[in-house]
């Protein structure tokens, strides 16, 4: 013990600063450096939570400003334009009313509902969206009424696309795709509501309105 004291007294000018530097080094290695990464993660977590809070508040504000009656109408318009199931009745009504408005006589109507199993060669235009293929036969049609028919069909729900037509001597066949799509529950079950963007608002206004 005495030897140690003697040793310390003799070398105190070196030992004490050495202990200080060693202490500083240990603090840097054990506290400061690990703390930097923890602080980074915690800051990121705070930013995420803050963003969530902002999104929730923005959602509340958006929902408060919504007129529920208009919202109900908009949902009806959008779901009529793109039903979640194959709505054969709506398809038939769209075709018959479009034909009547264009002055075309509908002479035949058949629906290709698709196979039960196996891959089907779908029209290229329709591969990204489920559809019902409807084959119709029409009479009393010329170029002008065919344009009218396609126009009125575009203004009808459900949304459709004429993929082929073969008209000769005032009558012929037209193949039409009627689109539908099951609801994407991942998008519907979200907590955050984002306001419709300008494109979506314009699109909503351009959709066939309900009678």
């Amino acid at each position, binding site marked *: 013990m005495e030897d140690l004291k003697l040793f310390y007294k003799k070398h105190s*000018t070196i030992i*004490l*600063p050495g202990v*200080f*530097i060693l202490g*500083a080094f240990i*603090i840097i290695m054990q*506290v*400061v450096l690990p*703390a930097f990464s*923890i*602080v980074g993660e915690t*800051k990121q977590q*705070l930013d995420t*939570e803050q963003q*969530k809070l902002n999104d*929730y*508040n923005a*959602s*509340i504000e958006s929902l408060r400003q*919504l007129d*529920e009656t208009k*919202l*109900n109408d*908009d*949902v009806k318009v*959008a*779901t009529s*334009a*793109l039903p979640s199931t194959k709505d054969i009745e709506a398809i038939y009504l769209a075709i018959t009313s479009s034909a009547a408005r264009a002055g075309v006589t509908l002479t035949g109507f058949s629906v290709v509902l698709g196979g039960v199993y196996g891959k089907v060669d779908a029209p290229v*235009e329709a591969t990204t969206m489920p559809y019902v293929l409807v084959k119709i036969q029409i009479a009393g049609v*010329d*170029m002008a009424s065919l*344009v009218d028919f*396609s*126009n009125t069909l*575009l203004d009808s729900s459900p*949304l*459709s*696309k*004429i*993929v*082929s*037509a*073969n*008209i*000769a*001597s005032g009558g012929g066949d037209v193949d039409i795709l009627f*689109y539908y799509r099951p*609801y994407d529950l991942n*998008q*519907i079950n979200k*907590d955050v*509501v*984002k306001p*419709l963007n300008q*494109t*979506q608002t314009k*699109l*909503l206004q351009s959709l066939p309105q309900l009678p």
Partner: protein
Amino acid sequence: MVEQGLNLLTVEKKREKKYSNFFTFSLLALILTVLISIGILLYMLWLKTTISSVTRKESEALATLNTMNGKRIKYLTLSERLSSIQKIVPGNAEFRDRLTTIAESVPPEVSIEDVSEERNIVTIKMTSPDLAAINTYLNTNLKGLTNKKGSQIRTITIQSFGLNANTGVYSATIEFVFNI
């Protein structure tokens, strides 16, 4: 001898000053490190407290949102439908647009008898008793169609041209290939 003693004293003083500087430096380094550590710990504490506060506010906001659940689901449904519809519209109007482009180019003296459209190919059969009208259409209007700004027509082919001697009606079959 005297000079040597003085030199030893200077060296000793220099050494002491060196040790003193070293001591001060090491002490400052330790204090600085401790202060930085305390600063970081306080900042972490502040972050944790803020996170707790934000999380509490989140729960309150979520509770408020849940009171508007019906409206929220309707709005999200609307948004979901519109996102899907964006993939259909305006691409579904191609048929109408192609026919309209062709119909607008046809003069009133010429009538279109047959129309066929398959994918991006539209074929029409036109008739007219007026040869000059058909000639003008084939030589002028068709060229105008391809030169039109934003024209989607890739090629135009006159597949046939003839006269029905019994009726005196001229007919032409034309194929329009549009860009996909």
